[in-house]
């Protein structure tokens, strides 16, 4: 009899394992049945991909793309919802966890009272995290999700009002109409996979508050199928091991999935450009489709067959350019989320073979910039590799091309060809339009110039003369500045004080760069101190960062404690002015110990007294146009 038991025992474990698969937790099935998730259009969800592609799934999971939209769990929430007061413009928000464990905010109400908003999900996890509430309305009870007015800045580890994040002029009160952006018609498109806004009353809504949605996405966050296309057919087909091994052995097997590396350059940049390139529907009539069933673009398509990339000349209803302020006046993008326009406007793309994949990888180890190994442009040792992979001949003698010391930033390709002149998410990023520095072009366009973002004490006239001396007569001498400041003035000082908001924020950032060229620095210090009084909190924030960077570098003037205590966000102009005046007044005493006066100074006298009249003259040149970033 024991022999029968022995034979039976052989079957116990296989039977147990097979039957156990039918019970309990199925991660793929579970995700598909959660609220907001759809499986329409052949989308399968990222959990399906993990089965066969564990390493790619794991490397994607580490990226900020994967956590772009999250449900409000303790792991996902980056901010301390501890009930503390968060004060902006005299109003208080209290992020807290309620008795049921729900993340919520106690906020100013529309008519002077208070209201409680429960967090439905989060958007963002890298630089800052925004919170959205579910607002139910209408007879059908369909909902929309609206952004809450305060957000958590991950790197600064502090709460901010959204007014401080976007490049908006200071407000004096909130809530305002722009605080509660509707997720279903904005963020859903680029912060999720296969979005379907499900607008229920298109053409019958009475404005954003009246819009009703039954929104769905294939994946919260930017998942595998955003770049590889719908995966259900691929999952079904490749579940068969014989098909898989036939594919591995070179057999002709239809994969039903897109490999962005195998696409031609137009289709390759379209994969990233579907989000990293602000765009409009190709025809206005497509708006209804987009708001009801979602974008028609799928990875592997040409983006221009579905949408029109926004340019400086793009119009909407009337014939006036609607987005001109988002570009420098020569058409170069100056805000983030226009990288597609930058890349496709570059000669390396137009005449070469450059795509986003040339430098970036979704599955590399660098999750912050998604740079491929060895392609990190800020890496002092390997920073040129992105360009040298094609321009190898320059790499043989870098100094002959750059006319700069190879150890310095003047020999870094990106410093000259894609300088830091794009604003977005509370920072200044590199341009994605690869071009040659040209002082005359930049002066006329009122845009930052690569040479003077490093040679901070030099004018555009100087830059033009140096370019002619080093590279020949194709470079013309700049005649005048777009902001009407004198052309002989140090470009950084003129731009940070007299430029438009994007110009100011770009140069406020440049004035703090640690790899700046040597030269007199008194003007730079005073320009930054004066910029602490700017009317845009984003500009003040960059000025403060640059001042702290200077304090932490050689030649500290002892401002660190005061500047660190200065809050660039949420304070009102009357509170800031005395502080800025005090900082400028103490400059001569602080500077005498460290800085040498220079005859070339323009906003600091030879006795190191700030020249307030010269500063005010430049401030009066500021363009009062408000910039609104399109996020």
């Amino acid at each position, binding site marked *: 009899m024991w*022999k029968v038991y*022995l*034979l039976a025992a*052989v079957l116990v474990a296989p039977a147990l394992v097979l039957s156990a698969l039918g019970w309990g937790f199925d991660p793929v099935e579970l995700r598909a049945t959660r609220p907001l998730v759809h499986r329409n259009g052949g989308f399968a969800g990222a959990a399906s991909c993990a*089965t*066969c*592609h*564990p*390493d*790619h799934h*794991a490397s994607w999971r580490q990226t900020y793309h994967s956590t772009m939209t999250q449900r409000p769990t303790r792991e996902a929430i980056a901010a301390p919802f501890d009930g503390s007061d968060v004060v902006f413009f005299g109003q208080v928000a209290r992020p807290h966890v309620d008795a049921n464990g729900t993340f919520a905010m106690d906020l100013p109400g529309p008519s002077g009272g208070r209201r409680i908003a429960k967090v439905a999900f989060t958007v963002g996890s890298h630089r800052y995290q925004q919170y959205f509430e579910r607002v139910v309305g209408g007879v059908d009870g369909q909902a929309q999700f609206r952004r809450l007015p305060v957000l958590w800045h991950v790197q600064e580890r502090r709460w901010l009002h959204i007014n401080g994040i976007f490049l908006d002029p200071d407000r004096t009160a909130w809530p305002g109409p722009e605080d509660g952006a509707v997720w279903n018609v904005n963020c859903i498109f680029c912060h999720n996979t296969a979005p379907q806004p499900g607008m229920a009353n298109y053409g019958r809504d009475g404005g954003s508050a009246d819009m009703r949605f039954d929104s769905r996405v294939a994946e919260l966050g930017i998942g595998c199928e955003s770049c590889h296309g719908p995966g259900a057919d691929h999952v079904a087909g490749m579940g068969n*091991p014989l098909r*898989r*091994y036939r594919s*591995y052995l070179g057999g002709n097997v239809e994969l039903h999935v897109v490999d962005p590396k195998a696409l031609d350059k137009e289709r390759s940049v379209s994969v990233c450009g579907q989000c990293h390139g602000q765009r409009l529907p190709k025809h206005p009539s497509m708006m209804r489709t987009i708001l009801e069933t979602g974008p028609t673009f799928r990875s592997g398509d040409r983006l221009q067959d579905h949408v029109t990339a926004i340019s400086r000349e793009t119009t909407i209803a009337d014939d006036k350019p609607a987005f001109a302020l988002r570009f420098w006046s020569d058409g170069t993008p100056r805000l983030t989320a226009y990288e597609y326009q930058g890349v496709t406007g570059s000669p390396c793309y137009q005449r070469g073979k450059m795509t986003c994949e040339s430098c970036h990888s979704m599955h590399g180890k660098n999750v912050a910039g998604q740079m491929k190994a060895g392609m990190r442009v800020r890496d002092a040792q390997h920073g040129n590799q992105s360009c040298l992979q094609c321009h190898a001949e320059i790499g043989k003698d870098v100094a002959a091309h750059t006319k700069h010391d190879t150890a310095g930033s003047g020999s870094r390709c990106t410093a000259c060809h894609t300088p830091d002149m794009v604003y977005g998410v509370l920072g200044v990023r590199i341009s994605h339009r690869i071009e040659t520095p040209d002082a005359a072009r930049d002066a006329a366009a009122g845009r930052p110039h690569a040479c003077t973002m490093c040679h901070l004490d030099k004018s555009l006239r100087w830059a033009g003369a140096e370019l002619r001396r080093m590279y020949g007569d194709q470079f013309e001498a700049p005649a005048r500045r777009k902001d009407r400041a004198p052309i002989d003035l140090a470009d950084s000082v003129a731009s940070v004080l007299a430029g438009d908001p994007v110009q100011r924020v770009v140069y406020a950032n440049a004035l703090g760069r640690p790899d700046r060229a040597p030269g007199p620095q008194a003007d730079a210090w005073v320009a930054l101190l004066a910029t602490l009084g700017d009317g845009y909190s984003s500009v003040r924030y960059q000025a403060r960062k640059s001042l702290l960077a200077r304090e932490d570098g050689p030649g500290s003037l002892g401002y660190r404690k005061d500047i660190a205590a200065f809050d660039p966000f949420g304070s009102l102009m009357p509170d800031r002015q005395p502080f800025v005046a005090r900082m400028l007044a103490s400059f001569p005493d602080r500077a005498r110990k460290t800085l040498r006066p220079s005859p070339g100074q323009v906003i600091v006298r030879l006795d190191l007294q700030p020249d307030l009249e010269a500063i005010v003259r430049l401030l009066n040149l500021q363009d009062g146009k408000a910039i609104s970033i399109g996020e």
Partner: protein
Amino acid sequence: MSDVTESPDDSTRQTVVTGFFLLAVFVPMGLTLEALHALKVPVYFGSSMRRELWTLAHAHGGILGILCLVYGSVAERWLSAAAGESIAKWVRWGAVLMPLGFLLGGIGTHEGDPSLGILLVPVGGVVLIVALVRAGLDCRPSRST
């Protein structure tokens, strides 16, 4: 039993030799894998499939090597000579094929699948199960007294 059939002593000796051979190969393999861990070798860490297969090769090679030694020690005492001889062959083949399959399966892997060398594993597994079942059925407790 024919003349060419190996004697029980030969069979036992070959099984023990196989056991030591397996241990000689797969115990150092464990040290090698630990060294790859210590040195954080990217080509090893880059593929979770390869790591898993080679870990399995190391574990199976070690355990099945010990099984061969144990079998060689107890077979004569617990099994009939004819059956013990035949079963020993199956044990040796199963013990070699399984870790070898895991090892080869980890060479030239694809992200979600091992290479075709993995086919040796189910073959070895079946051979081993058959051997162990046969041994169980032929086991004669009375011989031990």
